């Protein structure tokens, strides 16, 4: 049997820097890439390519028929495509504004004073009405102080303004439900009110979402609804339980009356504010 080795404590001859930990690698999920789907790629090519070819063929045919007609057709085509491009640009800008919210959240959670400070300035660029806190922001030297400043300043003001929007939308929805002659129309009218309210809240937070941006915002709002629900218990747990997920309720086509619709608007405004704000409330 081998004897255990003698204990030892040996100093190495050379000095060495302080030890560094080997960084751990987290397993990351393979991101889903829609463009890798042949079906979607084919549909996109056909959906865009065929109308473009058809338009070019039409303009070419118009030129063959009569030069003036051809120029008029080309002008219409360029004008239409230009407007579509402007629309796409706005959509992309709206979507990037939404994505910036997620980026700002990551920056605010980094705990690094410099990153948090820069992120705060970037957020306030989109909210010029709150630029008066910039001097105080410059003096705040810790991430906690910067976040506290944002919470008590712009975030609180946005929250208050959101409440006002929610209450106004609640009153409108009560009037609309009361005035709608057919109960089936409630779904459409209250749904329209809800979408408009979400866009208003987004504009309050410095965003101008287009159609795609609004759809994305609807999705984010639906996800945020569960978080917002936590703050609603004190008001009325039973009523809240019926209304805290308005989008699902719309899809189900179930509108339970003017009071419920009003309550729904207030909750919806809060959920939309949570989706639009990079400052997470506790």
């Amino acid at each position, binding site marked *: 049997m081998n004897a255990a080795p003698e204990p030892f404590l040996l100093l190495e001859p050379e000095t060495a820097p302080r*030890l560094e930990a080997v960084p751990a690698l987290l397993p990351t999920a393979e991101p889903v890439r829609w463009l890798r789907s042949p079906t979607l790629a084919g549909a996109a090519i056909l959906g865009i390519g065929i109308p473009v070819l058809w338009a070019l063929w039409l303009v070419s045919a118009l030129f063959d028929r009569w030069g003036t007609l051809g120029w008029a057709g080309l002008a219409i085509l360029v004008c239409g495509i230009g407007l579509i491009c402007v629309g796409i640009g706005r959509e992309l800008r709206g979507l990037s504004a939404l994505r910036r919210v997620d980026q700002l959240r990551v920056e605010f959670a980094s705990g690094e004073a410099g990153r948090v400070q820069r992120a705060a300035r970037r957020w306030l660029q989109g909210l010029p009405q709150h630029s008066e806190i910039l001097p105080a922001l410059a003096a705040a030297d810790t991430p906690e102080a910067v976040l506290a400043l944002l919470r008590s300043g712009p975030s609180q003001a946005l929250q208050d303004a959101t409440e006002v929007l929610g209450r106004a939308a609640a009153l409108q929805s009560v009037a609309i439900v009361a005035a709608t002659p057919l109960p089936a129309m409630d779904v459409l009218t209250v749904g329209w009110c809800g979408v408009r309210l979400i866009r208003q809240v987004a504009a309050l937070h410095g965003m101008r979402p287009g159609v795609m941006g609004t759809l994305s915002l609807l999705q984010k709002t639906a996800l945020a609804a569960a978080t917002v629900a936590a703050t609603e218990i004190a008001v009325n747990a039973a009523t809240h339980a019926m209304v805290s997920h308005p989008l699902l309720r719309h899809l189900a086509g179930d509108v339970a009356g003017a009071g419920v619709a009003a309550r729904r608007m207030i909750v919806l405004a809060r959920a939309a504010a949570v989706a639009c704000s990079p400052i997470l409330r506790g």
Partner: protein
Amino acid sequence: MVATILSAGRLATDMLQLRSTIRIGITGLARAGKTALLTSLAANLLAVSAGRPALPAVSDRLRGRRLRVSIAPAAASNIPRFDVASHVAALAADPPRWPARTTAVSMLALDVDVPREGLLAPLGPQRRRLEFLDYPGEWLLDLPLLGQSFADWSEMTLRRLETLNSSEIARPFLGFVRGLPLGVQADEALTLTGHRLYAELLRRMRDEAGLAFLQPGRFLMPPPGAPPPWTEFFPLPGRSPLADLMQVRFNAYADAVRRDLMSPMFGDLDGLVVLADLLSALHQGPASFADARSALAAAADALRWDRSWTDWLAAFARLKLPPQAIRRVAFAATKADHIAARQRGNLIALMRRLTHVPDGSAKSAVFAIASVRCTEDVVETLAGRPVSAVRGRIIGEPRPARYYPGEVPDGVPDDLFWQHRFLALPDFEPMRLPEAGRGGIPQLGLDALIAFLLTEILG
């Protein structure tokens, strides 16, 4: 029907959104590493919250979900906050500093949000507050005092002092106590002399004999501020006016322990972490090892492990829920980075042999951890034989050291083991903290311990 189910689900969600508290007790003798554990736990959970891979075992359990952790606001609590930032700053400094000895109680409270998985995801995150208490390790052994009378404690203490191996240390105090006349009056001068001799005895037992089972703990580590008169007593058997005075002061001391330590934390625990520096005990010898073992057992026995019918009755009388029983216990051998990887299995086996859960109802697990990692594993060739060792820098020494303390036994050490040397643990400096602590604190095994403690919320 669907609407009703959704409504009920939403109502249940609202109920679940309330932030419930999970209290986790940290028990460990002095220098066992409680402050380092709490600092590392907080810093690493905050780093995970910021997206850093600080706790791989916790990240595995999250399966892609994003944990949100923040330090809970102190509100109007009368317990001081555990100062995570200053402890992390000290470890991140260059040269680094270990946290100073804890001299008072402080509370670490973390708000943790864990998103639910699968069909439950729309219900929103689980919201919990984790509470931990940091306190001087010497005070842990005050907990067993709560279940003892002054007469029993005096008898037990004096019997133990008489059987000490190093009886020379105990002679002055024992001579004083045995020399007191029957029916001695309650004289303040006698009280002060007895207390001074006993406190000095405790200090020498700790510093010279390496013993740990030393009561009362505040005699060794007094709280900040002027000591109140009830802290001046000593074990005294028999009936006399002086013994009556000692008993009154002992009871006042026990009340303070109940108020300052037991009630705020140890009275209502959900989980428990038992820390033990077994490697240092192996170095100090068989008497010290046995003493540390009995000290930990006495502290564990003083905790609430199950609920009795009297607890239910008392709770109903106060219109409150009965106190929690401990559900999870993690036994952790600390400073595991001072031995090589192949010896850590032995350290876990040794810890397992030394510990037990009193009633078996709580789930338990054993770990070998280093809350703040200081070394890396290396293989040293000694007389042509490869020996697994560790490599790190000792504080104040720029040259790295290669260290092998001796073989760690995989069970309770026998006489043969004590015939061999087991080196003292050097004071290694912590590894460099990534991003000055914002990226977490390098650790060993702590991630598995946290994942075990938080199993119920991590899923």
